[in-house]
């Protein structure tokens, strides 16, 4: 709980005005104004793709805005990461930016090392400074001489957090900084954040865990579709309001009416799926015409599950497709078995951005449109055009380059590719992420259509509302194993959230 009063003081700790940033014609931020006060913890909420990460990258100097200004305690930011650091900005980012081949101590004091007279770094002082810091912060059990490369993910986050506070920053950013930490360490991180605020700094706190944000933030700003759509004092705003603002319209309207018609034909049976320590004894069934949702907090094995089912990740277990046992150890085998995946990151895993729609869509069915290896271009054109038309892809023609399409249309192109294959079991990894609302509705409508045609769908989403409204059954993963399978009247957001944190019993 917060135990200090918040006064909106001036000058602002962080002042951003009219910030815009686009990548290749796609706007990531549009005319964003933001003001963070000294002494406060300010939460940022928003779906993935809403612009939060881009905004953060601008503040730390990793990117430069196309328009607008950012200033830190009155001084303009306008250079690279070095300038930001000099102005007192420190960040713990999602992709933990530590140097794997340097030790813990070397990482923490990187670019700020204590020197000997001869201009050489004093390793000894480095170690003692680290020990002092760890004592101050209460970090135990991590050796300063350990190579970061050999540390576990949660330890790396602890190091990243320690590094960020080591120089008493004036603006501290936590971007999903607690995602891999167990509860005790999360509390530690949050208390550090409060300390920085208490000392007069600004803490910007991003987390998808709504509870966490509420616990620590004084004010919350919502990002949606590349804009900052509202700032609220935490105590004055309800969860529902926050969620509504994040989504942009009352949740109900997005989803097509569920059709709970059930056939009992099993398309996919999975038993005893194990993958290292990421998946433990997962079992699931997918029936014809049903959508099986996969949910839970981020990083609990959902990605690994989908990758394993698609043959893209080694795993042990039994998989039966239409009653026949299958060995799925490559994407080609999965496709042949009738399982196709729409990956999480459409830009780096899904699409060949520099190639045309035609090239992208026909990529998985090349065998079917060639004779003796030679392409039948007429057949290809026909297939690609009819599929893109069915999915309502907005493009000038199928030779348009994928990079120039909007996020939503890019997702549709990916779906087109998968639908052209013979796969009837579709694995979708967060398909509506970072997609505009109109296309979201299109995609959800398409999913319902497909189930009506007899497809079996496994849908992973980081959005609980999506999962609850679209799934016929919802499987919650926690720590790589199944925490709950919700269906019927039990299929509610509250139950899903409870199961995600381990509070659900049948």
């Amino acid at each position, binding site marked *: 709980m917060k135990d200090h009063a918040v006064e909106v003081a001036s000058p602002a700790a962080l002042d951003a005005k009219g910030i815009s940033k686009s990548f290749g014609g796609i706007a990531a931020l549009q005319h964003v104004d933001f003001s963070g006060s000294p002494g406060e913890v300010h939460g940022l909420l928003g779906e993935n793709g809403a612009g939060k990460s881009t905004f953060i990258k601008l503040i*730390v100097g*990793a990117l430069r805005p196309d328009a607008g200004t950012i200033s830190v305690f009155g001084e303009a930011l306008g250079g*690279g*990461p*070095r300038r930001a*650091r000099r102005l007192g900005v420190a960040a713990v*980012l999602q*992709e933990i*930016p*530590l*140097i*794997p*081949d*340097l030790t813990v101590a*070397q990482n923490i004091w*990187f*670019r700020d*090392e204590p020197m000997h007279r*001869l*201009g*050489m*770094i004093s*390793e000894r002082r480095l170690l003692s400074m680290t020990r002092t810091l760890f004592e101050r*912060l*209460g*970090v*135990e*059990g*991590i050796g300063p001489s350990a190579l970061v490369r*050999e*540390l*576990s993910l*949660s*330890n790396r986050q*602890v190091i990243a957090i320690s590094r960020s506070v080591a120089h008493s920053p004036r603006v501290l950013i936590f971007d999903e900084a607690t995602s891999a930490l*167990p509860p*005790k*360490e999360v*509390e*530690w991180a949050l*208390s*550090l954040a409060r*300390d920085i605020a*208490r000392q007069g700094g600004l803490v910007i706190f991003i987390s998808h865990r709504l509870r966490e944000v509420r616990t620590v933030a004084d004010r919350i700003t919502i990002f949606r579709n590349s804009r900052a759509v509202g700032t609220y004092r935490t105590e004055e705003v309800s969860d529902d309001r926050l969620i509504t603002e994040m989504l942009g319209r009352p949740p109900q309207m997005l989803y097509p009416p569920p059709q709970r018609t059930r056939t009992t034909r099993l398309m996919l049976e999975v038993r005893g799926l194990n993958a*290292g320590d990421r998946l433990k004894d997962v079992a699931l069934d997918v029936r014809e015409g049903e959508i099986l949702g996969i949910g839970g907090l981020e990083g609990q094995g959902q990605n690994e599950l989908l990758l394993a089912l698609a043959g893209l990740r080694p795993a042990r277990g039994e998989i039966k497709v239409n009653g026949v046992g299958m060995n799925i150890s490559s994407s080609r085998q999965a496709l042949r078995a009738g399982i196709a995946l729409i990956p999480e990151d459409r830009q780096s895993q899904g699409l060949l951005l520099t190639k045309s729609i035609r090239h992208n869509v026909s990529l998985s069915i090349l065998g079917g449109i060639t004779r003796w290896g030679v392409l039948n271009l007429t057949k290809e054109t026909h297939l690609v055009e009819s599929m893109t038309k069915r999915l309502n892809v907005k493009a000038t023609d199928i030779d348009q380059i994928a990079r120039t399409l909007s996020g939503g249309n890019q997702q549709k192109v990916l779906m087109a590719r998968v639908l052209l294959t013979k796969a009837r079991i579709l694995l979708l990894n967060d398909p509506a992420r970072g997609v505009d609302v109109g296309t979201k509705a299109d995609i959800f409508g398409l999913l319902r259509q497909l189930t009506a045609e007899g497809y079996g769908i496994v849908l992973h989403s980081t959005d609980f509302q999506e999962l609850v409204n679209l799934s016929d059954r919802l499987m919650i993963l926690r720590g790589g194993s199944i925490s709950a399978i919700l269906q019927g009247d039990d299929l509610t957001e509250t139950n899903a959230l409870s199961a995600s944190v381990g509070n659900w019993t049948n």
Partner: protein
Amino acid sequence: MTPPAQIESHKRRPRSWLSEVPIPMPYIALAILVAMVTTQRPSYLSVAQLNLTTLEAFSLILVTVGQTIVILSGGLDLSVGGVINLTTVLAATQFGRGGAHMVVWILLLLLLGLAIGAVNGAVVRRLRMQPFVVTLATWSILSGVSLLILPTPGGQIPASWLSFGNMTVGGLSIWVMGLAGIAVFWVSFTRRPLGRAIKALGSNSEAAYLAGVRVAPTVVGAYALCGLFAAACGLFLTTQTGGGSPIIGNDFVLPSVAATAIGGTRLTGGFASLAGAIAGAYVLTVINDVVFTFGIPQAWSIVLSGLLLVMAVFLGELRGLLHRWA
């Protein structure tokens, strides 16, 4: 300030024993090869022989040090061949009678190596071109220039430089002490901001940039140092060959990378072992002696060096894979 929570270390990723042990490959290989030769030539293990072997290996050692630095930064420098060519032909045509004139030229050539390396680095960074492509091109250009200056091996190296190069102090060749100099350089280099920045860049360039590393000067620095060492190699070669050659450097490109790889340096950057690289250079040199001693045709030594390179890289990959899935 409220007392912060105490944390405990969490499940450390279990270390596969294989990844903990520093690869002893170059040392073992060296020991085996030396043993092989010694069986036929007992005099091989002597100070006099150490001098000879070091003389043979020193040119490769010099260029390997530079290559190791560039590879540590995440790059690759094929143009060392061209720098060596150019250095030897310029030395052979410009040293004249020796004396102060020669000393000036020695400094100039070292500076030239530094400058060429700096240009490599600048092009790689500023134009965002792949190191392989850039250094392949500069290798070609420098070799062409060398051919223009001295179309066939020859030229004149003053006697003073030759005798300097073959001096001994207290029974040890000065180049054995040169090794000590290299060691001192390396210790200093790894503890300086530039050295650390180079290592960071090769380890995780994104993180290094975010942490405030000035990428362009770091890259330029790494390639400049490599050029410097390549020039030093060329200068050393002239003390041994007595002349210049526009093609002698070409045979050093693969071995410099091979020695680095055999020595355990990661070819994708971030981790380097100088001791290993020097051992690797010795390995490649002693292979020649092995081949000669056993009467095997000379050409086998390059075949073996190629095979060793592939094996070293392959083992490195294996280790990396084990590490990830241990």
